[in-house]
């Protein structure tokens, strides 16, 4: 399919071309408010083409049946307006062998997905609460190639299971949810664990207590870490560095964070839906250390950002059917890579063992409005969505009407401790983290 496209592009564009073709099939089931309500399938296929002509780069994408000549014409029209970029398409190189496709996930029938949902529902049902469950299975075929001879194709599978439990009592609305994602079909132990993490947090949330106030020790759960991670990952994108808006742009080689803080992007992690042997621009995937023991090591780049910054792509080109590639993370790993793969039969207690030393503090699982405003600057101030008070080493109840504020870069300089509960939250692997002196305000 894309070979023909590239053949035409090679003839008409003097600086080469690359293309991505992706076909995705998805099956989903949805339980709404405790009842199975819908089942669906989706099929989608499309191509994205990039050409370089007279030094200028152009893009065209389509899901329609567009003739190769026509798509190349559109990409050339786009290139005619573009600025010159010294973009070089990579040559063929060796690719890591990783398992991205799991028969069990690909072959699962609708009934299997429904049974998984029912099993999860059964574990979450409780008096006075309503449960939503959704299960989505995806299988994809991806092919990328360029006129410099590089090419790669792979099939992948992914299964996402998510559930949330709602409890409305008067005007108090409580929702506790979680999700498990993997490349393979989750076993019963994954569902049991998912239900247990939701139930534990729900149990602790039933009692409402007054919030603490002041500069306090705060434990952020793996899911609750987002306000602290977003500024750092945005600042480590080569694109932000190139624009001159990254606070970490000039800090390579410097000790910027606590010596126990390390950050890696790992596209080769087994069993993860974001893993892949090759990126969407034909660059072989490899591990990228971003921060090692508190020292900034490198930024992520796609081909264009790398060309502009006069460096090499790190294999982080991410590309949809429409629009041009952008730098994007795959699997972000916080902490030492050695932690990864540790499996607990049951979820560790909330807080990952970090609560014992806290006399008065907060455990934050979710904040409201994360990602709004000037994120890359590091300062954040958010009301809590789901947070618990810690008193004398114990969770005493859920806190409402409180706000948490701080600066991510400052807080990461002095970490009070990492928990023993590292897990995947979306595509991020992280434990709970104890940070000292976080502003907590009552409202």
């Amino acid at each position, binding site marked *: 399919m894309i070979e023909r496209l590239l053949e035409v592009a090679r003839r008409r564009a003097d600086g080469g071309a690359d293309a991505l073709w992706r076909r995705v099939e998805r099956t989903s089931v949805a339980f709404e408010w405790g*009842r*199975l309500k*819908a*089942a669906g399938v989706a099929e989608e296929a499309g191509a994205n083409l990039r050409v370089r002509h007279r030094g200028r780069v152009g893009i065209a994408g389509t899901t329609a049946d567009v003739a190769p000549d026509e798509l190349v014409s559109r990409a050339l*029209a786009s290139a005619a307006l573009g600025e010159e970029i010294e973009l070089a398409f990579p040559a063929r190189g060796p690719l890591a062998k990783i398992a991205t496709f799991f028969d069990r996930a690909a072959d699962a029938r*609708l009934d299997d997905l429904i049974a998984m949902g029912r099993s999860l529902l059964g574990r979450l049902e409780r008096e006075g609460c309503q449960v939503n469950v959704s299960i989505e299975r995806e299988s994809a075929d991806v092919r990328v190639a360029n006129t410099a001879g590089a090419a790669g194709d792979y099939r992948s599978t992914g299964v996402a299971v998510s559930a949330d439990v*709602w409890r409305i009592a008067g*005007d108090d609305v409580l929702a506790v949810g979680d999700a498990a994602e993997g490349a393979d079909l989750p076993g019963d132990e994954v569902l049991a664990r998912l239900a247990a993490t939701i139930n534990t947090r729900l149990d602790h949330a039933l009692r409402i207590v007054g919030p603490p106030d002041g500069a306090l020790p705060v434990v952020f759960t793996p899911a609750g870490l987002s306000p602290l991670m977003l500024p750092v990952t945005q600042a480590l994108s080569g694109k932000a560095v190139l624009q001159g808006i990254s606070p970490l742009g000039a800090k390579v080689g410097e000790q910027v964070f606590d010596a126990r803080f390390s950050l890696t992007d790992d596209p080769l992690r087994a069993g993860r839906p974001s893993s892949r042997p090759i990126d969407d621009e034909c660059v072989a995937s490899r591990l990228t250390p971003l921060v090692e023991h508190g020292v900034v090591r490198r930024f992520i780049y796609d081909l264009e950002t790398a060309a502009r910054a006069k460096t090499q792509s790190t294999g982080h080109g991410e590309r949809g059917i429409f*629009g041009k590639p952008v730098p994007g993370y795959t699997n972000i790993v916080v902490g030492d890579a050695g932690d990864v793969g540790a499996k607990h039969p049951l979820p560790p207690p909330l807080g990952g063992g970090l609560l014992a030393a806290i006399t008065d503090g907060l455990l934050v699982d979710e904040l409201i409005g994360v990602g709004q405003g000037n994120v890359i600057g590091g300062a954040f101030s958010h009301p809590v969505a789901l947070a618990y008070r810690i008193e004398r080493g114990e969770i005493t109840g859920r806190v409402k009407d409180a706000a948490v504020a701080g600066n991510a870069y400052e807080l990461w300089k002095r970490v009070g401790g990492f928990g023993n509960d590292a897990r995947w939250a979306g595509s991020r692997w992280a434990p709970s983290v104890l940070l000292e002196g976080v502003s907590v305000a009552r409202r």
Partner: protein
Amino acid sequence: MIDRLTTALQRSRADYTEIRVERTWSTAVTFRGRRLESATASEDQGGFVRALHAGGGWGVASFTSLDRLETMVARAGELSRAVTVDPPIRLADIPPRRADAELDLDGDVRGVALADKKRLIEAYNGVMLAVSDRIVDTLASYRDEVSEYWYVNSQGTALHELRPEVTLSGTAVARRDGTIEKGVESIGLRRGWRSMQNREPGFRAVAERAVALLDAPMVHGGTYPVILDPELAGVFIHEAFGHLSEADFVYENPQAREMMTLGRRFGKPVLNVGDNGAAPGLRGTLPFDDEGTPTQDTALIREGILVGRLHSRETAAAMGERPTGNARALSFRHPPIVRMTNTYIANGTGTFDDLIRDIQLGVYACGAFGGQTMLENFSFTAAYGRMIRDGRVAELVKDVVLAGNLFRTLDRIDHIAGDFRWNQMGGGCGKAGQVPLPVTEGAPHVRIEEALIGGDVPG
């Protein structure tokens, strides 16, 4: 196409079947700083089938290859049968409609060369860059689309529409030493090329504001009387209240239903709120929703009392109410779900000055960088603010974050001015993975007697 879809419908063995097909042409041009980031043309097409067997669940299928139409109609039927729902899903009746509606294309963007679109946005980008040396970065985007839309269902509705949409957006980033501030302009209309001309003043204003914010102090956190400008008031009513009025949140959840009982008091008698999918020319406006129900103006709060909610055919039937034309899908990739269209706080009386006259110390919160509601709590980041001192607008302040509890805040709205306007912004609303759905919000200036402004939270 309608004939082809009707033939496919006739083969369906489900009790109810609907098919949507969309073909969308779009172009996008983006500048970052002085550099063209991209100029692309895209073509997207595909179909969506939803089927319902009596006693079954929804069977849905989406696809990009129209050759698969007949297969996917059958597949949706099978999926519906595979799911048993008790009590069964019912759909409120609507009269079948046949319509061939061409929305005002206002200068069809498909007839305009990509180079002209580039020139237009390059000029607006240049306006921002020219404001000051302090403007270190900009992001300026032009995006347009025309979507051809076909819809048929097995109850006799057949619709064909051409739906235009254009958006302009600009972000100006000002920097001095370690301080970075931004200003954001955004325009979105269900119109065409002509409406995108002569927009320089808006781009200039946001760049000037970004520079001015470099010198502005951070607002001092605390509780104040707060005036929301029409833009922030519109975002507030959409995010903080609008989502709760979507009936899919309440229809099968007894506790939520109780919380949102019609007749409950939500605010003082000055407060009137509605959603109008039929208001002309706005992004949330269409003649029909994605179930073939005509759009309408739906009252949600009248004189402080909850009087209505937004429905799909399914939620309306389940609650014994009437469909309101709010079942919307982002594209053929998605099922229709209950969504807002153009949501508003209705006009009050008096002027802005009447609102601030008796305020000794307050905050005038303007524009919105973002907002999120989680359950009954919300947090909005205003683009900028001004202090109100002794009944007058005073100095510019930054980092104005408005946070609070929905019920308490709605109840504290005590004065609404008579200066209503629609905020014709780009962007859109997100729900259940369907984002950005084009919506518009509108409001006059609104006063909240007392609200929490979090700038820096004192440690």
